[in-house]
């Protein structure tokens, strides 16, 4: 079992609307992320084993007033009709709000065009993030198909880094952006091969991935229209407030219980079980595949605790921390293995854990919850990354980003992670 992914704060498995296959948004996200990781991380490393995703959201913070006790709420009446956003528009609306495209006095320009003129790769990321949230009612989306298309779009976007394609100046609707993208990909041969070969379809597009992009563009356009009409900031205050409350709650609960219960702490128990399973599968294999641990946000803090204190002998080939607070936790000496004597004259930084071969720490300058690690940890390698999002949007955007996977798929082979002989 070569890749263990530990998710971050504020994730609850049972929330949200199920798709036609009965999958919750969490399950869809895992499926999509697995497909992208297989394509961009496991393939370059030659790893064939499946990905293990321990889920710990059910052991995290519980709010005894339902989380609303501390929210300010509103004391004013609304004079006139006040309609909330359709749930399918929440994500694109939040992304639009953070991108500030509607504040540039260009209300009639399509959102994707405005973003694309600023940064073409960012517009592609924006589109893909919204596409990951699309539920197709008739043809459930194959995440591998979307991952393949994302790869082709990433290559095209990279080609236009700092130099948006000419067609963008003539775009009059979000849908035309997709049309031009499709035409350009076909002609530049960046497009991933269609799963159904040369067959024509006498109706909608054959490829569900393109259909998802179209739906995604439509939602972006609808959300922008809705936001132009409403005082959209008020649409997000309460949800953001709740997210912050959960961020704090999950972290506090974990630290309090870990100090009291040690490795019997429920979140640790789940993550350690996943690591032990991965190690056991690898131990029995004739050739050991590299072990990759990926922690997002709080997941990286939990993994750091595991490999430095609870499983210090677990051999980790690649430790990837993304949008992580590991450096901040260490500054506060919150880890079980934290040594309060560091920094000192002889040891100015905490050494990279001895059982870790490579440590990459990815963060976005716009992500207020993602921090650099190099200044605190000797041997950690920081990778700056621009998701094109702002504030909280950036924190959740890494694993939906085409450019994130593109950069990883190029960076990982440079590490020369190798297979080790088995027993």
């Amino acid at each position, binding site marked *: 079992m070569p890749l263990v992914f530990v998710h971050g704060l504020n994730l609850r498995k049972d929330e949200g609307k199920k798709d036609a296959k009965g999958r919750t948004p969490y399950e869809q996200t895992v499926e999509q992320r697995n497909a992208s990781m297989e394509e961009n991380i496991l393939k370059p490393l030659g790893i064939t084993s499946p990905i293990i995703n321990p889920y710990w959201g059910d052991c995290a913070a519980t709010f005894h007033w339902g989380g609303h006790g501390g929210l300010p709420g509103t004391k004013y009446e609304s004079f006139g009709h006040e309609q909330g956003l359709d749930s399918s528009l929440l994500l694109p609306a939040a992304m639009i709000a953070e991108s500030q495209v509607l504040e540039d006095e260009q209300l009639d320009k399509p959102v994707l065009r405005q973003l694309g003129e600023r940064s073409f790769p960012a517009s592609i990321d924006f589109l893909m993030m919204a596409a990951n949230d699309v539920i197709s009612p008739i043809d459930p989306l194959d995440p591998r198909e979307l991952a393949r298309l994302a790869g082709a779009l990433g290559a095209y976007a990279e080609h236009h880094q700092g130099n948006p394609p000419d067609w963008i100046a003539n775009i009059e609707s979000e849908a035309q952006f997709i049309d031009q993208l499709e035409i350009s990909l076909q002609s530049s041969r960046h497009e991933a091969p269609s799963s159904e070969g040369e067959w024509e*379809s006498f*109706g*909608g597009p054959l490829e569900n991935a393109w*259909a998802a992009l179209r739906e995604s563009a439509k939602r972006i356009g609808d959300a922008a229209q809705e936001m132009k009409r409403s005082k959209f900031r008020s649409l997000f205050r309460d949800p953001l407030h709740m997210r912050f409350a959960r961020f704090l709650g999950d972290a506090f609960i974990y630290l309090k219980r870990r100090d009291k219960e040690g490795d019997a702490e429920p979140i640790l128990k789940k993550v350690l079980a996943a690591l032990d399973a991965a190690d056991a599968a690898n131990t029995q294999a004739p050739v050991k595949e590299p072990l990759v641990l990926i922690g997002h946000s709080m997941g990286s803090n939990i993994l750091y605790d595991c490999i430095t204190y609870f499983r210090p002998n677990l051999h980790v080939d690649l430790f990837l921390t993304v949008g992580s607070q590991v450096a901040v936790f260490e500054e506060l000496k919150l880890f079980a293995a934290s040594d309060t004597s560091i920094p000192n004259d002889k040891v100015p930084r905490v050494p990279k854990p001895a059982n870790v071969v490579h440590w990459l720490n990815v963060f976005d300058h716009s992500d207020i919850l993602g921090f650099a690690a190099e200044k605190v940890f000797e041997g950690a390698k920081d990778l700056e990354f621009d998701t094109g999002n702002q504030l909280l949007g950036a924190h959740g955007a890494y694993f939906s980003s085409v450019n994130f996977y593109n950069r990883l798929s190029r960076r990982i082979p440079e590490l020369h992670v190798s297979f080790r002989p088995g027993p």
Partner: protein
Amino acid sequence: MTLLFPDNGANAARIHALVIGIGAYPHLLNGSKSKTAPAKDSFGLKQLASPPVSARAISDWLVEDLNNPGAELGSVDLLIAEDGAPIRYVNPKKGINKEIEIPDKATLTKAIKAWKKRTDRNSKNVALFYFCGHGVASAGELALLTSDFANPAEDHGLANAIDFGALLKGAEWGEAENQVFFIDACRNEISQLLEQPKLGDDWILPWNKKPPPGATRRQAVYYAAARHQRAHGLPNMPSRFTEALLCGLKGAGGSNPGKGWVVDTITLHASVCATLRLGNRRQKTPSQECQAGTLAWIELNRPKEPFVVPVAIVSDPMNRMNTLELIVTPPGMAALPPSAYVPDVWLLQLKQDDQPHVLELRECGSMTRLVSQFLKVTPTHHDISIKVP
């Protein structure tokens, strides 16, 4: 309007066909006007190269092979949208070489009205409507997109389509008692179009909610795809449905109640469904199931013999197939060369015959026969498993 086949026979009972094949949609993706006048939203709809070929193949069959003593061919109006101009229909066998019109909304509307006028002349006429091109379903209703669909210069560019349900109702108000519709188009919904209040013109042929006057109209309606599903074709080839349809019309969709082979609408449907299902077994072929709407009995053709019948053959056990060779010997003839092996199934088109064919399985490259059996090839199709010792 350009009739391929002269509108002869005046008022005698005839088959009057309107055949439409739309491959070029100038405002959609990669269309001839997609740079100068692109659709505000193409909905992912692309240019097609199969519908023009499909429409020509249907026209060829009509002018060359149709044999219906009760209602001979009266007229064929063919409209095609494809790259390049002018668009012509050429049939050397029948000496036809004519420029034909492009089915944009206005032209197609006129053609439909003229077709109805021709079919109205005699109540025993058969009105035959064939459409191959983009179709889009919305709330269960099907819209057939004309070549100028999504023209951005028009306020209602999305209305450049035919509301097929309304066309059926309008046809019921016509005089022809026998009406056959072949719709080779997708029937899947495009989510971005679901919010459109109306797709397609619902008033090309007038109708109202009262029952149509006069005798009952018999309608047979064939859809190339089941509801919510897609229809497919390979570029520059007849589509899957049209290929199956022609195979059925030429005889595989017939029955012989005692006075020779007759293809009627009921047996034809069974044949088209079976042929498509057999084709679904081909690797890398998108699955497609046809579906009938109303299916009244109407005689269509008395096929010329011999005609071909689709036959699917597998070995039992199936895992032996890739080491085996199938040899078919038609009655009174030498063996045919070993059949092309398509993974998991041999798909053949064998001539119908009262005498049996011989089917023989050998190990590849060996002359030793492993097993043989007889097969009397008759409509509508055969799906055979040969037990290998």
